[in-house]
């Protein structure tokens, strides 16, 4: 008999927090079994995510072998400092996510909420850096400058934009003929990753909301745990994308 089972036998009145009153779905013998199954199912799901990105990495490997010059030139036009900053942001968020799970397991709800908020802010920061400092100038030539060195927040640089995927590619100073392929791989890889960041943030926001309502606690934290696993995967994919895209020239 685990503690989870004995708790089910006690009368759990309305004044107890939701996580203490949690009962496993009717087809499970205990909440512990349900938790195990959810974690197992989620690991399986993560393996599908790895295989999904495997396709992108496979395309990357093939085209890098076919067109090394284009990949060299393409990587050179990425700024490793933005990529590196985003790596730090995501690593920090992974740490705060792990901390928040620990806090919920040990009943420190206030600290868990703070850590979840930091994780969410890091997610926003990642997307802002990616979108404003990386995608926007390369796609359109418009730069975002928070210091307003040119007098406005946004300024246009002639001949910088147009680094787009495939036939949308319109960059006048390209050296290599296969540049569009590089940008296709870059945009597909990072955009699908960014989509996963957004999905992860939705999951974390939901966990944050339900934590404030008392849904999760030391004996029931399934969604916190699996959202954390998802967020670590998002981080891990970026750890691979970063050197492969930014550091190969």
């Amino acid at each position, binding site marked *: 008999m685990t503690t989870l089972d004995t708790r089910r036998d006690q009368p759990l009145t309305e004044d107890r927090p939701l996580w203490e009153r949690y009962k496993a779905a009717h*087809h499970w013998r205990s909440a512990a079994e349900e938790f195990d199954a959810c974690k*197992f199912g989620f690991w399986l799901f993560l393996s599908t995510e790895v*295989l999904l990105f*495997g396709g992108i990495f496979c395309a990357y490997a093939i085209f890098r072998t076919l067109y090394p010059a284009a990949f060299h030139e393409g990587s050179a036009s990425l700024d490793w400092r933005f990529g590196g900053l985003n790596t730090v942001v995501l690593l920090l968020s992974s740490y705060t996510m792990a901390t928040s799970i620990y806090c919920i397991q040990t009943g420190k709800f206030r600290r868990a909420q703070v850590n979840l908020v930091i994780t969410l802010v890091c997610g926003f920061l990642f997307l802002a850096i990616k979108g404003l400092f990386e995608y926007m100038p390369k796609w359109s030539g418009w730069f975002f400058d928070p210091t307003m060195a040119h007098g406005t927040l946004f300024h246009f640089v002639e001949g910088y934009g147009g680094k787009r995927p*495939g036939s949308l590619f319109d960059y006048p100073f390209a050296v290599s003929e296969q540049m569009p392929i590089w940008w296709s791989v870059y*945009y597909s890889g990072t955009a*699908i990753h960014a989509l996963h960041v957004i999905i992860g943030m939705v999951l974390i926001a939901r966990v944050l909301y339900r934590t404030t309502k008392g849904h999760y606690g030391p004996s029931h934290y399934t969604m916190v745990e699996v959202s954390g696993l998802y967020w670590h995967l998002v981080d891990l994919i970026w750890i691979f994308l970063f050197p492969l895209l930014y550091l190969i020239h």
Partner: protein
Amino acid sequence: MSAIAHAHEHHGSYLEPKGGFWTTVWDWATTVDHKKIGVMYLFAILFMFFLGGMAAMAVRLELLEPVRTVSQTAADGSLVAVIEGQLFGTSDAASIAEGNNIYNRLFTLHGAIMVFMVIVPSVPASLGNFFLPLMLGAKDVAFPRLNLLSWYIYVLGSIFAVAAIILGGVDTGWTFYTPYSTTTDAGYWRVALMTMAAFILGFSSILTGLNFVVTVHKLRAPGMGWFDMPLFVWAVYSAAIIQVLATPVIGITLALLTMERVFRIGIFDPALGGDPVLYQHFFWFYSHPVVYVMILPGMGIISDVLSVQSHKKIFGYRAIAFASLGIAAVSFIVWGHHMFTSMSELASTVFSALTFLVAIPTAVKVFNWIATLYKGSIAINTPMLYVLIFLFLFSIGGLTGLPLGTLSTDLHLHDSYFVVAHFHYVMMGGTIMGLMAGLHHWWPKMFGKMYHEPSAMTGAILVFLGFNVTFFTQFFLGTQGMPRRYASYVDGFQTLHIISTVGSWMLLLGFLIHLFVFIHSLAAGKKAPANPWGGLTLEWEAASPPTEHNFDHEPIVKHGPYDFDTARPPHWSAEDYPLPDEPAGPAGTVVRAH
């Protein structure tokens, strides 16, 4: 005693309406009961089977007669096309060109619907959903809400596909090969819509597979070890592993293809430096393993139905279970045989050798099935007929795969009607015949009604004859050089094409008889006993149709799934089925209260 009384809390059949019409509709639309979801899948799949079948009938009808396009030069030197014969009832040059497009769309429609919306989900999503938890002694699958979500995703994907068809159709073939699929101007966005449909259906497949893997691991009844599971569960489990591990790859491929179509990202487009063969590798890395997602659950049905209907312990239980896993493992390393002509000689030779490996676990299964039949007390009824049909057709399908895996013969046979005949023998002769066997075997359990046996057997015989008339001729057409995917052909092939088309009418008639048998059974069938065939597995422990929570008690398994010589089947009654010798062993599965 009070605990037992609590466990006895009465629940009606899962089919009992919950109230008025709209209450019942709402109850079904929001149900998380694996049985209702299985039934909803079954009807959705049968409807798509009807749509895909109608397209096939149109294709066959068109091929009754060749269209002869003879080029002639007029007196002034200009080229005039002289056309004889008809294509979809028209015979002038412009209509023939349009007719060819219609033909392309029809076979694409047939292929895409049959593969993505019928055969892949057919057995696992319908019978698997219904019977996997029952056979494990569980109340439901591991994640019931996810299960309902899979069904809605399936419906959404099907709506996308049907929309693409209604809005004019897609002419790429079900494989969406690049660069054709990225450059054909038959509806710029319809191709994108269709690839999105396949992408969405992939999600449904992944979630179902994931659900089943976790269910098998975590929800087996007390006393049920891995080797006490029915072989249907082993087969669905093996297929579920493939669904989880292969489908994401087609997901990213179709996502890239959609981006290719919409944004021209050029990854698969040779004009932009992309690699169309990369698309084929990606595509078949999924689509070859998925061939075994199609066939493995069908094989699982055969193992179960064959053992129960011949009332004999299955021969080589572990060999069949491991063969399922073996097929799942080998399925991931043979995809290259779809691209023999676009690879190096060494790579082709390696893939050819690996392809032959598949024959080993498959043959293990077939021999074990035949050994099971030997000295069994075989019941001749529709499920058993379909098992025998499966064995016959699947063996032909499997053996004709060997010349296609051999490089020298494949050079002549690839892209011919030989290939068409081969995969219809394994896909339809395997999966669909397996589905029909399982559907008749478990129909009384699912709906609590018996079907009219003589009519169903007539249908089965017609399907068997029609199938062979339709597709055996296509082996000859293929070896004589008739290529796939053409609306027209040289005159010499016409006789065989006519025979094949007549066969398709027999097939249609056979399936229509089955349709009426099912409708008749639902409307006026005799009430089914809990265990009409004398099966030993846990689904026969439940009522027919099962109650909402499947079992009144949590079952404990005390004997193997096929121990016919030592265990007495649950709910045994000499009126329902005769036993050769009344077994002396323990009476049925022992059950205990919670």
